């Protein structure tokens, strides 16, 4: 009975996600970094802090360079909901506050391919693409399953 309840909740979560992100055919996001990174994984909390620009340095001392896709991009919206439970426009007040502290939001690149190219040549860069878009130019640090996070 308990399992049935869990399955139902997950089904509802997936249903809601599909309707809140119409047309999104993404089941998993891959967090990628430069292949020379000595990290093999990154916790969700750490990814959150890097994208909120509260964590600036990696454990090896290099600067994190978090990358975003445009706020209207389906993948950006899926990433934002998965990690922060908020859409990009709902984080505006947070970025206003950070701006007052001299911090600007992560750099925005136009496409997944642009993210892959930037990450491939920039140590410390951290971006996200669809899992099936990953190739050997980058190193995967985390797979974020949307359904798992809801």
């Amino acid at each position, binding site marked *: 009975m308990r399992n049935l309840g869990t399955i139902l909740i997950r089904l509802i979560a997936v249903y809601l996600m599909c309707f809140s992100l119409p047309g999104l055919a993404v089941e998993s996001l891959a967090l990628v970094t430069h292949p020379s990174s000595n990290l093999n994984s990154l916790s969700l909390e750490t990814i959150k802090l890097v994208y909120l620009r509260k964590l600036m*340095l990696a454990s090896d001392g290099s*600067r994190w*360079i978090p990358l975003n896709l445009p706020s209207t991009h389906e993948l950006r919206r899926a990433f934002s909901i998965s990690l922060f*439970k908020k859409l990009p426009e709902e984080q505006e007040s947070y970025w*206003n506050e950070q*701006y*007052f502290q001299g911090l*600007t939001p992560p750099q925005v690149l136009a496409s997944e391919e642009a993210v892959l190219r930037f990450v491939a040549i920039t140590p410390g860069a951290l971006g996200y693409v669809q899992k099936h878009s990953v190739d050997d130019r980058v190193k995967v640090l985390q797979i974020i399953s949307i359904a798992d996070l809801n």
Partner: protein
Amino acid sequence: MPNIQLAWLIALLTYSVQVLADDSGSGYQLGRGYTLGDSGIHLGGYANAQMHSQGPSPTGFSLEDLSLFVSWDNGSKLRYFSETEVEDGLSIKEGQSLTTGLAKFRLERLYLDYLVNDNVTLRTGKFLTPIGQWNLMHASPLVWTSTRPVATNNLFAEHATGIMLQGVIPLSERSIEYSVYSDYTSSLDPKRGDAPNFDNAQGLRLRYSLYDNLQIGFSYADFALMGDTNSRNHLTGLDLAWSYQRFAINSEIVYRDSNSLSVSQHAWQGYIQGVSPLTESLYAVGRYEFFDQAQQQTGEAEVLGLAYRPTPSLVMKVEYRLGKHNRQLAPDGLFASFTVLF
């Protein structure tokens, strides 16, 4: 005649904001500043025009704050930030003409950050005293009312000049933010009327997110104030911030005890504020505050207001404040402001 000048000022300010907003297509975004090429230099700031009508005082209007941020970050471990402010750059009062004579330049903040490791940043210079939430985010576009709660700057200095260690420590699925600081010079502090300035101070602040939408904070400071350097003050503060969709509740409470003979030896001050959306851009704001004060009974004030936020960077506010034993620190009156991050 002053009313015509006032209308011109408001029209000019509104037009300026429109011009700035129209620049977004060329890479500039209102409220996010402007980056100078690949130099790592970023420029920005905010402006706040305010109208107030307090008790028997004549109604006044002023360009209360015009702040310029300059930051530099080239991707190394060193970062720079400064905020220079023109206070009361333009002002006008009932029966008087427009003047720039009250304008004051302030160096609000100036510091260098060195990223020591992933959990520690060393800050050197002049920075906002990390006590409570409001003092750290006090810029008018970031707060919901034109007036500031007494508890957020009456018992301590708004700025400290010295060194601070700060950072974030991930704890399982949450994280804790910390700041530890020491103030040891006043050379960057301008004389600010009755506002308290630290002679020296040490303190810490911790902030923990219980949930994504609920944060609690703890602040402690041990300090001496300029003009009363023989006395030590100990201040403890607790604060809370909760939000749900577009609703929000914020509260702070501070307690200061002092061995000074010239100020109240024990003082409690605090506030609780609620924000509720009325329409897509319009919000209702209510606040209750209380404040122990020297040589008077404990004061109280209630604030009721509206805030219109058509974009995240632009806010228009109007509010009425009413209280008792509040004439000195939070007088009754009507306040309105127009504020923009640029």
